[in-house]
């Protein structure tokens, strides 16, 4: 018997899923809860989000105001600031689709092993088929490389 908390709605029903009885779900107040319980017991999946290390230095040009109608380079971009040597900027990433829960540690190992240089746009692939999950690790933010 697998015990789960349903997350379909705030009510949080205590679900019991019987793996010896065709993954029958009890304790659910609605059909959506039964579907959630079955899937969560059979093949639980999660989107993994984390950050990867950025490997470059830049001269942090200061921009005083951002005009969205002008080609302003900095907003919503990860960057490395050499004036703050202890700060290592990170590029946020996520798996492109939910991956099996059992593979989360493998994905995190791959995330920890990689350093990136960019440039990247949101959605660009950082690691293809990360940890053999079938999902790609993708950037969730732009990463611009300053002109040398």
């Amino acid at each position, binding site marked *: 018997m697998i015990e789960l908390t349903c*997350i379909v709605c705030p009510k949080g029903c205590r679900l019991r899923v019987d793996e010896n009885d065709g993954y029958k779900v009890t304790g659910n*107040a609605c059909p959506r809860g039964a579907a959630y319980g079955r899937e969560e017991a059979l093949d639980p999946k*999660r989107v993994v989000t984390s950050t990867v290390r950025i490997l470059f230095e830049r001269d942090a040009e*200061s921009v005083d105001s951002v*005009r969205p109608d002008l080609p302003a380079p900095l907003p919503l971009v990860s960057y490395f600031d050499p004036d703050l040597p202890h700060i290592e900027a*990170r590029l*946020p990433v996520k798996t492109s689709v939910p991956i099996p829960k059992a593979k989360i540690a493998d994905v995190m190992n791959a995330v920890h092993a990689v350093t990136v240089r960019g440039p990247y746009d949101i959605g660009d692939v950082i690691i293809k088929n990360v940890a053999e999950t079938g999902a790609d690790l993708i950037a*969730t*933010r732009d990463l611009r490389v300053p002109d040398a």
Partner: protein
Amino acid sequence: MHADLIIIGAGPAGLAAAAEAHRHGIRDILVLERDNEPGGILNQCIHNGFGLHIYKEELTGPEYAARAFDELRDTSVVVKQDTMVLSVSPDRVLSAINPADGYFEVSAGAIILAMGCRERTRGAIAIPGDRPSGILTAGAAQRYVNIEGCMVGKRVVLLGSGDIGLIMARRMTLEGAEVLACVELMPFSGGLTRNIVQCLQDYNIPLMLSHTITDIRGKNRLQSVTVSKVDDDLRPIPGTETEMECDTLLLSVGLIPENELSKTAGVELDPRTGGPRVTDDTRTTVPGIFACGNVLHVHDLVDNVTLEARKAGRAAARFLREEKSDNAGPARLPNGHGRTHPAPSLTIQTDHNVIYTVPQSFRLPLPDKTADIYFRVRSILRECEIVLTDAAGRIVRRVPKDYMTPGEMEKITLSADALNELGTQTLTLSVVEQEARDD
């Protein structure tokens, strides 16, 4: 210096308000942002789950921020970053400071307050004990880990089960720390069920309900915390203490709307929300000053922040248009939304089960077809009914609910026609439990 509309804060609220005001014809819009980039707290919320309602997909915080900022592309909205607003006067003159302009003053036709909220700290909840390093709010830890790339500890105890704390429990675990427990004073969590499951249960982190921290030890760095069970009156029970060795204590014990600037403008605050008192169109008690997002009341979902901010953007645009036509001639405003004569209004009061409502009142006649009341309940309620009654005790609206929790903001939507018909009076919003109703 002058701008038609000044928005304080370029987080999700400020960005959405700016885009919406621009869509409604306002061109001279200045957004003042304290940080070195727009996006606000979303930039450090790298987890997913944002935007299901607005964008119909699950985005991470930075992705949501990018969408919100993209809405300003090809507009005349100016975002001034690295800019700290120091004060706002009741007649809408702001003083501010930044490295490029130094100190400056700027007047505004209208102002939208969108400063967000702050975390409660150790001082705010008065935990006794030593004062070593290693005690920080969950949001501060989130910034260190996700943006600056610094781990903040190895053995972690989390006090409070707010959503940021739950998210950080998972985040710290994924980055190699051991999270010993999530300690929650109340008999229920204030966080979303989804976060309890996916951040605590997924990683076997125990949730200790009805417990609190009663002592902190450590000379330089935190060495241990003492966890005690509490009774029904939330008082620690002697003899239930356990000591947990840890080097880090994360606090997720509530958020407070950030209203220091609102106070300088003379905006009246509601002690229940910690934010300005507003009418349905996000007007504060000071003419021409509007408020939206977490500065108004703490939201669970950024989608709701965006919706509220769009309302503020529309309201500010409407206010500016009315001001203009007011100044152009002697004609009174057709809908009574003038600034010198208060419009008729419906006030909403609450019963003991409801902590607060936003808005606190409606200006009549209402500008849109429908109007929403957002509110939170005080405790977990089952098999209950939301009841809105008029001054004579007649039921205006009733909505049955299976389950309500303080951790989830509730909403009822009302037809504007029905509210307009009620006229100036006080409505009462209650939540009635089944047993009470059967009496």
